[in-house]
């Protein structure tokens, strides 16, 4: 009996030591969320807002390639994945406002910044209080990440701790994603009005 008790206490001691070593090495990942911006959540087609600004996502388009017409030539920009183009309207609620930190989040916790293609970029400006004005963002993602995408938009300041942010569900489920991918045009032209 006493041998059994001794064996069990050894096992418990080793398990506790292993747990202590694991705890010592664990990185406090959650800490970085303490000062993250404060998000208001909403859905495509509805007004989502906070004290600082409001947005309404009007339309989400998906394209396999974007074309851009210049005076002399037409440039085609194909993507190995997909372009996701989000059209929205933004209104400031207090004072002139510049949006920033725009990104598309998707399945698996992945977060995509704007596409980074010099030839195709979205369009934003300065937004004045109480006026709705248009904006657009172009993202580029792999084909299998379209379902469940959300648009996150915040203030433009570099350090945005505890600032205002909106988090808009773009309303794309698995079936709609498959449909959009199947119909994704290869000659998409960015809308400017």
């Amino acid at each position: 009996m006493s041998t059994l008790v001794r064996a069990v206490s050894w096992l418990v001691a080793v398990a506790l030591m292993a747990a202590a070593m694991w705890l010592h090495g664990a990185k406090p990942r959650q800490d970085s969320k303490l000062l993250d911006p404060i998000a208001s959540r909403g859905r495509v087609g509805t007004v989502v807002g906070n004290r600082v600004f409001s947005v309404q996502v009007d339309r989400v388009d998906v394209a396999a390639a974007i074309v851009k017409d210049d005076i002399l030539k037409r440039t085609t920009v194909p993507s190995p994945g997909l372009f996701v183009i989000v059209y929205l309207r933004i209104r400031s609620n207090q004072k002139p406002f510049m949006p920033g930190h725009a990104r598309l989040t998707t399945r698996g916790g992945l977060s995509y910044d704007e596409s980074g293609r010099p030839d195709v970029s979205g369009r934003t400006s300065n937004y004045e209080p109480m006026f709705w004005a248009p904006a657009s963002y172009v993202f580029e993602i792999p084909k299998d990440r379209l379902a469940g995408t959300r648009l996150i938009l915040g203030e433009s300041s570099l350090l945005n701790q505890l600032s205002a942010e909106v988090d808009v569900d773009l309303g794309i489920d698995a079936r709609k994603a498959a449909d959009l991918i199947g119909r994704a045009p290869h000659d998409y032209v960015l809308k400017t009005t």
Partner: protein
Amino acid sequence: MLLSVVGVVAVTIALTGAFGGLGARPSAPAAVSPGATVDQGLFKVQVLDARTGRLKIGVFGKADNKLVVRARVTNTGDRSWGVISFLSGVVAEPKPGQYVKPDMTQSNGDLLGGTTTEIHPRLPVTVQLVWPLPETTTPRSVTLALRAWQYGQAFTTNDIGWSVTSTSPVTAKVTLPVRAGATS
């Protein structure tokens, strides 16, 4: 009985220590052949080829002597990183111990023939790394040192994420032949 158990444990620990301990990393960078995949922590990198010549890069670029290395880069992190961030983890090593950074303004990312400045998660990008060369220099081969990105807390804030500096350890070195006289 107890003494023999203690003896076995002691010998096991001693042997483990003598062979480098548990979870040991190789102390020297791995020498990797071109085309093999290197894991930098944040990026998986496949160095494809190298060429020199009087190359013109970008609309406003000059056609002067350059070394251009192509690498296929996959971002395995959970957010987008600029091509510039990737470049800060790669150096050329013309002589042992001498490191040369790639040119930040001429190096670029390429997706199906179009330029990009971002490397998005799970969307592989072909990065062209550019080093300006003196007019008469035509190296036969080039060695690239790829540094290991480290995951941890930032020095000045409580943000936790990936970073690489000029003192980060080199995780792999790739030596590849250089094709001379390239025109594009």
